[in-house]
């Protein structure tokens, strides 16, 4: 090879090569020789650059999950029994561990797509998770989730997640103090924070909170107004509750053996202020929509006096044209106001999943068991069962297992759905007693091992 000309730069060589040596006064062989020497020289002569490492993450305060538990989480993130992931997260949160660092990115990616698992991620991914969330904008949602940190300056300087966590803890310990703290800086909070903070007052809600919430009905942000209105309906003596009861008395009256509905003809500004949304969803009649919302926001205690009937009888009344809207209003009210008696009465008429959630767990399970025994499997039953919290009681377990065996030959798709749900909700200790349904046994065994690793 020729001795390379020292004064030729790499850029010169590249530009010569691009246009071709035919247009320059060098030979192609020389260009290739020189390029080879320079290329190898550049590769071999490359030095380290100057770099700045990221600032280290804070020390972890939680212990690492046991290795077996971490390995199981890795399997689930890899797709095995992925539906049980929320249960893993919940169990890990209860025992206060953190996840192995190398699994955090996978978990945070999942949280970016699925909001439902976010609530535990703040604590479970620990200091490392927060450190990563600061670096990756698509994980920044994590900073809005509460992590367990000591208090101190948190209220003043923490991320929104920290501040929500702090306020929630204070509310649980000293409800009035929490509200007063909130009132002090209320005007300076962001709309998102205001909405989240109002919701936190649902813990230990009382008439002391009423003036603050009543004022919040004039907030600029709809979410804040809605949250305040939802809370006020749970206080039968609140001004909002009284206004609603007054409206309800006008729109629904007892008429012989039934009820006559006379829905509002307009949604005035006072109704709107009280949380009634003027525009109905597509396909819903305006007046019925307003009626439904007024019923939903009226304290349920009002009806016993107004109709002279207990809830069990009230739900049986014939309503005529607006029956659907009234039933939906009551249903929504029972859920909003956590009224078990009304929920029970309404469930008797129509077994809606959402109503079950208002009942204590054992009762959910018992009522669901009755339905399963009495009815054939269909989509509605599966939806209803989806709302029954785990673990399912022995009666429900027995009823569902029987249904699975009965339907596996005739309706394999429904049986499949039941197996899937049963796998998630049955007590995992039953894994040894369901051997005849192999898929179920595998899932329960998986959960059984999982719970042992996280105990």
């Amino acid at each position, binding site marked *: *090879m020729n001795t390379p000309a020292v004064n030729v730069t790499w850029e010169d*060589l*590249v530009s*010569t*090569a*691009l*246009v*071709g*040596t*035919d*247009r320059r006064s060098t030979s*192609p*062989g020389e*260009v*290739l*020789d020189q*390029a*080879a020497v*320079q*290329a*190898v020289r550049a*590769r*071999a*002569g490359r*030095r*380290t*650059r*100057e*770099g*700045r*490492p*990221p*600032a*280290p*993450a804070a020390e972890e305060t939680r212990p*690492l999950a046991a290795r*077996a538990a971490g*390995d*199981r989480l*890795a*399997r689930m993130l*890899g*797709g*095995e029994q992925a539906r049980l992931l929320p249960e893993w997260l919940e169990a890990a949160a209860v025992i206060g561990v953190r996840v192995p*660092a*190398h699994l955090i*990115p996978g978990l945070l990616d999942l949280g970016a797509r699925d909001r439902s698992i976010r609530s535990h991620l703040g604590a479970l991914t620990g*200091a*490392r998770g927060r*450190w*990563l969330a600061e*670096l*990756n904008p698509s994980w920044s949602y994590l900073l809005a989730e509460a992590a367990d940190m000591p208090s101190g300056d948190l209220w003043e300087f923490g991320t929104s997640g920290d501040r929500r966590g702090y306020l929630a803890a204070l509310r649980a310990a000293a409800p009035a103090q929490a509200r007063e703290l909130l009132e002090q800086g209320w005007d300076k909070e962001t709309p998102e924070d205001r909405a989240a903070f109002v919701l936190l007052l649902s813990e230990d809600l009382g008439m002391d909170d009423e003036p603050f919430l009543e004022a919040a009905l004039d907030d600029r942000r709809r979410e804040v107004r809605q949250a305040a209105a939802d809370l006020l309906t749970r206080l039968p003596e609140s001004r909002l509750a009284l206004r609603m009861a007054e409206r309800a008395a006008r729109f629904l009256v007892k008429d012989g053996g039934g009820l006559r509905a006379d829905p509002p003809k307009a949604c005035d500004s006072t109704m709107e202020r009280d949380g009634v949304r003027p525009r109905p969803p597509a396909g819903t009649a305006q007046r019925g929509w307003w009626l439904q919302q007024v019923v939903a926001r009226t304290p349920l205690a009002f009806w016993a006096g107004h109709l002279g009937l207990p809830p069990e009888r009230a739900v049986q009344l014939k309503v005529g044209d607006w029956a659907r809207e009234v039933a939906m209003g009551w249903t929504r009210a029972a859920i909003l106001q956590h009224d078990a008696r009304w929920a029970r009465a309404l469930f008797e008429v129509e077994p809606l999943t959402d109503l079950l959630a208002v009942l204590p767990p054992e009762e959910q399970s018992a009522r669901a068991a009755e339905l399963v025994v009495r009815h054939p499997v269909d989509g509605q039953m599966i939806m209803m069962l989806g709302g029954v919290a785990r673990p399912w009681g022995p009666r429900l377990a027995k009823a569902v297992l029987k249904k699975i065996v009965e339907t596996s030959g005739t309706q394999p798709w429904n049986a499949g759905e039941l197996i899937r749900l049963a796998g998630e909700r049955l007590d995992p200790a039953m*894994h040894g007693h369901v051997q005849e349904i*192999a898929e179920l*046994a*595998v899932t329960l*065994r*998986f959960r059984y*091992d999982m719970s042992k690793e996280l105990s």
Partner: protein
Amino acid sequence: MSAGVANVRRVTERWSRDQVLSLAPDAASQKAAAGVSAPGKWSGSGALPDVVWGECKGSGATPYRACVDLSEPAYKCSCPSRKFPCKHALGLLLLWASGGVPDGGAPAGWVTEWLEQRRSRAERQDKRECEPAQGFRPSNGSAQRESRVTAGLSELERWLTDQIAHGIAGARQTGLADWDELGRRLVDAQAPGVAGAVSRLSRVLREEDWPGLLLEEYALIHLLAVAYRRADGLPAGLVETVRSRVGFPITREDVLASPWIRDDWDVVGARDEEQDRLVARRIWLQGRATGRAALVLSFAPIGQALDASLVTGTTVDADLAYYPGASPVRALVAERYGPATAGPPAGTKLSRVPGRIAEVLAGDPWADSWPVVLGDVIPSAESLVDESGNALPLHPSTGVPWRLLAVSGGRPVTVAAEWTPRGLRPLTVWDEEGQVVRL
């Protein structure tokens, strides 16, 4: 393996799930293995220090019998799958990795039978390998090959000269077709190594600075052709390097005939790369005592058996035989004596990497990958940094290495990476507990 029972007593440390999955031939196998790793699927399972076995319930009446000799590792399963290791063997290992296989127990008859077979086969092989290897004698066939390669490479030299004479500005339009044609001629000329280099040229077109990168590649191919032409004046080691880069085959026997190097070899990382309907698995080793780097390369059609005998994060006591060359790195495992105590490998200082790479390139200017194990480095989004602020960039295709960042959390860790001219590809990191994490 003639050492047999005497050293089988060494307890194999239980592998992590990640390590097991790295043995799978492809992603589908990983998934399938997870599916059969549930404890409920297995019966009669047990583990001795170096062997795991169990019976897996399949769709048929008879369960599949799977057994893994951990020292190697070697796999056996009665299922008809053509994948290797099959999902049952992997599933069994996953179960074992998660603590789901009870220690001890007497191995069933079929387990001992298989182990016996393996042992006697290994002894027979030992005997065969003790026979003197045949020396290298050029036959008529190889003389013919020699002249074909000579002709093919001088044509290549002319082609390259033409490109530079007319200018490479049009490579984006005509390159793919030209290189395809050129590659075919080089295959006909029995120079598959150069043909491979030509077929990889298309990669540079994706880059923004493609003219510079293309000139670099053309120049290095030119350098190889010139080196082959002038081989008579080159040192012996460099001649070997040139011949292997050109694509002259070297037999296993010839490699094994070179002196062996015994060490405790850390398996520091592995990377699979798909090319021309083949998967190439590159497994990087580093000797504990010698500090030498080694590459064990295996190829298989997509979805088929790849070398699964070296598990990232483990350490094996073995003899390696290196392929000849000026910067030897590719090697064969000549003899395994069993596992050695594992743990994070010793890391080099980041500031010493450029010097090391310069030495490698001084021997083999075409070297484009080399393993480095870096101790006490802090990963950032685009580089690895040491405590004095010296940094080595990551390969652009790596993207932000989130898993690596997560494990380090801004603190120094040991990272194994593949050096390439365009930057480091991180392969493995050891976490705060000394656990290996594949990246």
